[in-house]
């Protein structure tokens, strides 16, 4: 028996309780049904024992004494009394002290109604105060960032927010200042609480000291309704509740899902809800006519599109986008495109991802497996910018459990500090570096870092215990180089697993369901054929299709007649915006299906309004392949419809029947045609134990199914205080009820050598050049994408894109003081601010992608060579 399995016995209030060594008394008691009051204790934070609310009597050599239950570990034979007069008096006393300086703003406090201080005072506290002195005063709420307000008078100094900021997020931007009666939370002057994770502090603050700007004075907890859902702002798939009041979303809160987000949300996910009620929502179908956008009806619009489809060859029809859609939408669109129209030119990625073969055909790891790997190899963009909560999980694992990390990247990332070894490479030379890792000679000019140490690290572990996180770090370079590097890692480290670093909401689900060229639902390749599919689909594409870049290139040649854009704002989001713009003007029928008006809308011939997040049921798939549900809390906006319904109707206008009337029908068919999803019934997805989602294929998810913990009511007070309302889940379109009925799937990945499946990389291998800098363009969390820009408070956080160069490069351009520089490349010129980054190799410039601003994307074209720019001081 290992230590952690060893059971201890103690008695709590005369009742025998089992526990394990190391467990804190407060947690052991809770499992036995005894809720000890608490403020500072939070199950996801290290205990500190500062608030003293949890004092209970514990028997020791000198008899029973008062001890903080959150700060003592259980011991065999421990005797504990939590409800004696002495314990009650102590708890009562602590509350009286806490209230001595508390302003009792309850009527105007956002926390009122879901406040642990209110609740515990009612349950455990004195009913009257003996305190007659003046309370301490501070200026009422001060904005410590654009998203968070701090009311120092309300703070009870529990240390939750500061522990979160320092230990979990790793950015101690807030801390206690002063001492004794002066103690208060503070930021440093002129250094606001600008953390990607700041909203979590308001979520766990046990009083109304920290409140979030978007939610301030929006609602009272007793007026709220909530539904559980999954965040799709990125592909981590954090579990959360969506809370609304009067058909308007007012906030999201993180659910404690052991497997995924462990209570936390990033601020982009948390505050993105404002885009749902944005003024940019598309209310009805539109035709784009010479006179401008003309409102029309669904039937006219669909009729027009159907006619255009009828006269088009299958190969001249293409679909781009869909990575934000629900699995059911994706499947329906894939069926329409590949199974009815017969085109394989369907791509959910916008040339910013990886070859789907890597994602679909490798052995996949869960987040938990990644955090418990013997070695984690990171070959993705900066995870804090792209998959924020995955960053938190990996950071914690490195800090607390000593997870070993080997980082292979173009420059320093937010995880470099935790990495055992960091290797840097010159853009376009990732594959060589990985070959070097496995022993090949490499040109020292093209990389930096301790290669020997990296080699030793890799050979010190069992390859089968390695997990590789693979993503796309550089948008300005072809994806082939990183793809081949990742493939080489996975092939050479036999038995290693892959965790997708693809960022877009449901892009991993899109790959699983065949919304990429060359694939059909179930991670299977098109040419492999599929009996089940043939039975259900009218046709299958005759030719392998094009990816989004190739689609746009063929459009230039006039080969594309109908293009569907599913939530794809090509002009902002496609790496080569110039190509996108030219291509769009050369396609007779561009159908834009979207929730928000964006830069591409005016290039569409027909615009159809789609329902947004929280306006529909469904399911989504995260980086692990975890399928979890999307909750519906709002009535769909105006005339908008869910994307699957649009596909079904469009098929009807073409005289075809997709055979779906509701989400149950779709999910049923997915299970039939996809071995990957087989056994994952709707009942299983909606079952209480499966709320945090189930990883496909099912054989991989045995462990995950019941790990979701219900946290104590004081950990995330905003969730427990709000009743789950709205339609009961059984009548909802997707969630089922009862125990999960799982049958195992027969799916097994066709794992051959991945490298053999990829194209050869035969382009000229360019190294540093004298006066040309190699361009690296990377994503950041708050870019000018329509999602961020249409969420009022997030949009205020978007800063102009910056660039970075090595100290030598800085000198080379002749910069000193100001970094304002003109970058010229691909026939365009862009001015931006440069800063020095010693982690970059000489001859490289790294620039942040700027989404809808579309400046940075002018600097490079998507050809197969490393992009170069000239730079001069402004």
């Amino acid at each position, binding site marked *: 028996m290992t230590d952690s399995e060893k059971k201890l016995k103690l008695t709590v209030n005369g009742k025998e309780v089992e526990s394990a060594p190391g467990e804190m008394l407060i947690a052991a008691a809770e499992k036995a049904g005894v809720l000890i009051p608490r403020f500072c204790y939070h199950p996801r934070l290290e205990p500190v024992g500062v608030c003293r609310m949890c004092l209970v009597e514990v028997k020791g050599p000198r008899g029973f004494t008062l001890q903080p239950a959150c700060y003592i570990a259980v011991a065999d034979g421990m005797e504990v009394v939590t409800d004696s007069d002495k314990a009650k008096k102590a708890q009562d006393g602590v509350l009286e002290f806490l209230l001595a300086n508390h302003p009792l703003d309850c009527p105007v406090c956002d926390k009122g109604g879901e406040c642990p201080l209110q609740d515990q005072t009612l349950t455990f506290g004195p009913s009257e105060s003996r305190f007659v002195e003046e309370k301490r005063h501070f200026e009422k709420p001060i904005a410590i960032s654009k998203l968070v307000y701090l009311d120092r008078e309300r703070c009870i100094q529990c240390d939750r927010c500061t522990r979160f900021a320092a230990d979990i997020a790793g950015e101690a*931007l807030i*801390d206690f200042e002063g001492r004794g009666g002066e103690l208060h939370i*503070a*930021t*440093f002057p002129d*250094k606001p609480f600008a953390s990607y994770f700041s909203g979590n502090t308001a979520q766990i603050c046990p009083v109304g000291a920290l409140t979030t700007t978007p939610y301030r004075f929006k609602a009272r907890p007793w007026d709220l309704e909530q539904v559980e859902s999954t965040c799709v702002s990125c592909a981590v798939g954090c579990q959360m509740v969506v809370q609304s009041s009067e058909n308007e979303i007012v906030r999201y809160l993180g659910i404690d899902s052991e497997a995924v987000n462990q209570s936390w949300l990033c601020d982009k996910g948390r505050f993105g809800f404002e885009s749902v009620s944005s003024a940019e929502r598309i209310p009805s179908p539109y035709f784009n006519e010479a006179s401008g956008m003309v409102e029309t009806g669904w039937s006219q619009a669909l009729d027009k599109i159907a006619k255009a489809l009828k006269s088009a060859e299958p190969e001249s029809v293409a679909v781009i986008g869909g990575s934000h859609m629900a699995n059911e939408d994706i499947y329906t669109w894939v069926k329409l495109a590949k199974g009815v129209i017969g085109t394989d030119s369907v791509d959910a990625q916008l040339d910013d991802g990886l070859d789907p073969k890597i994602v679909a055909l490798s052995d996949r790891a869960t987040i938990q497996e990644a955090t418990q790997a013997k070695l984690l190899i990171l070959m993705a963009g900066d995870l804090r910018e792209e998959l924020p909560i995955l960053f938190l999980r990996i950071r914690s694992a490195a800090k607390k459990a000593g997870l070993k990390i080997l980082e292979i990247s173009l420059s320093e990332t937010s995880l470099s500090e935790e990495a055992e070894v960091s290797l840097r490479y010159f853009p376009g030379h990732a594959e060589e570096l990985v070959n070097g890792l496995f022993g090949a000679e490499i040109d020292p000019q093209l990389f930096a870092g301790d290669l020997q140490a990296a080699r030793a690290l890799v050979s010190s572990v069992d390859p089968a215990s390695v997990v590789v996180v693979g993503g796309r770090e550089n948008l300005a370079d072809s994806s082939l180089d990183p793809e081949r590097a990742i493939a080489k890692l996975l092939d050479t480290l036999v038995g290693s697993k892959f965790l997708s670093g693809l960022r877009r909401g449901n892009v991993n689900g899109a790959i699983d369901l065949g919304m990429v060229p060359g694939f059909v639902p179930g991670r299977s390749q098109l040419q492999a054929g599929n009996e089940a599919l043939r039975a259900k689909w009218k046709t299958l594409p005759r030719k392998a299709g094009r990816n989004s870049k190739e689609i746009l290139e063929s459009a230039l040649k006039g080969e594309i007649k109908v293009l569907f854009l599913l939530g794809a704002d090509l002009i902002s989001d496609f790496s080569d915006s110039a190509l996108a713009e030219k291509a769009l003007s050369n396609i007779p029928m561009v159908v834009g299906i979207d929730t928000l008006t964006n830069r591409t809308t005016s290039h569409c011939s027909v615009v159809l309004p789609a329902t947004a997040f929280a306006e529909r049921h469904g399911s989504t798939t995260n980086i692990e392949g975890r399928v979890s549900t999307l909750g519906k809390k709002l009535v769909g906006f105006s005339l908008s419809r869910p994307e699957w319904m649009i596909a079904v109707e469009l098929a009807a206008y073409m005289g075809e029947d997709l055979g779906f009337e509701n989400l149950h029908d779709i999910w049923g068919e997915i299970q039939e045609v996809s071995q990957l999803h087989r056994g994952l019934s709707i009942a299983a997805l909606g079952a209480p134990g499966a709320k945090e989602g189930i990883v496909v294929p099912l054989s991989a998810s045995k462990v995950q199914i019941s790990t979701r913990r219900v946290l104590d009511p004081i950990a995330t007070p905003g969730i427990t205080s709000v009743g789950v309302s709205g339609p009961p889940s059984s009548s909802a379109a997707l969630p089922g009820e009862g125990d999960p009925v799982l049958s195992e799937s027969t799916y097994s990945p066709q794992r051959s050598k991945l490298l053999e499946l990829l194209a050869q990389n035969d382009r000229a291998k360019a190294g540093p050049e004298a006066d040309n800098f190699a361009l690296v363009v990377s994503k950041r969390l708050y870019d000018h994408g329509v999602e961020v820009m249409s969420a009022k408070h997030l949009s205020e956080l978007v800063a102009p894109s910056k660039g970075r160069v090595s100290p030598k490069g800085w000198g080379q351009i002749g910069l000193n003081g100001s970094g304002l520089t003109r970058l010229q490349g691909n026939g365009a010129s862009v001015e931006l601010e440069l800063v020095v980054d010693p982690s970059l190799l000489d001859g490289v410039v790294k620039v942040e992608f700027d989404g809808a601003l579309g400046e940075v994307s002018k600097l490079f074209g998507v050809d197969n060579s490393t992009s170069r720019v000239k730079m001069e001081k402004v």
Partner: protein
Amino acid sequence: MSRFTKEMETRAYELLALYPEKRSATIPLCHLAQEQNGYLTEESMVQIADLVGTTPAEVLGAASFYDMLHTEPVGKYVVGVCTNIACLLQGGEELLGHAEEKLGIATGATTDDGMFTLEDMECIAHCDHAPALQVNYRFFGPLTNDGFDTLVDDLSAGKLESEVPPHGTLSRVQRKHPIAVPLEEIVRHRRDSDAKEGERLAAKAAAEAKEGSN
């Protein structure tokens, strides 16, 4: 000039080298910054955070806990009058009142000429000379009102320069020797003692387990 001067920076690195955990140098570095500038400027806290690998907010958090560290400008002489029990009984409160009059400022304030800051203090362990006070942490007492006036006049006239250095200077004796115990040794020692403790605990657990099974 609020970041460390070149010379002070050298001393900062010497201090940093003394500690196995860089963070532990936070308070000594705060004193160093205060020695240079008389108080802790924002820039110096930012620099200290960089040096010890924390954030400015954490440096401010630590510094603001201690009365000896000032995060706002103070006079050249910080006069702290003790009003704790022994001094109180001997007229400490009255002395403080007199000091306010003599300096023309309220407790906590600084004279316009930037010479004096007045504070009240808890016991400064000079009770046998009550009522006592400190000027830049140098002791004076027992003091009458007249004695206080003389002290202030002397300080203003620069007569006590050798006894009372400007605020922030803790000691004029500087470390000139290399670190006595090399850092590697400290680390090794720590590792050894951790290992021993580990063995001890393991042995104890084994013994307990044996007892349990009997």
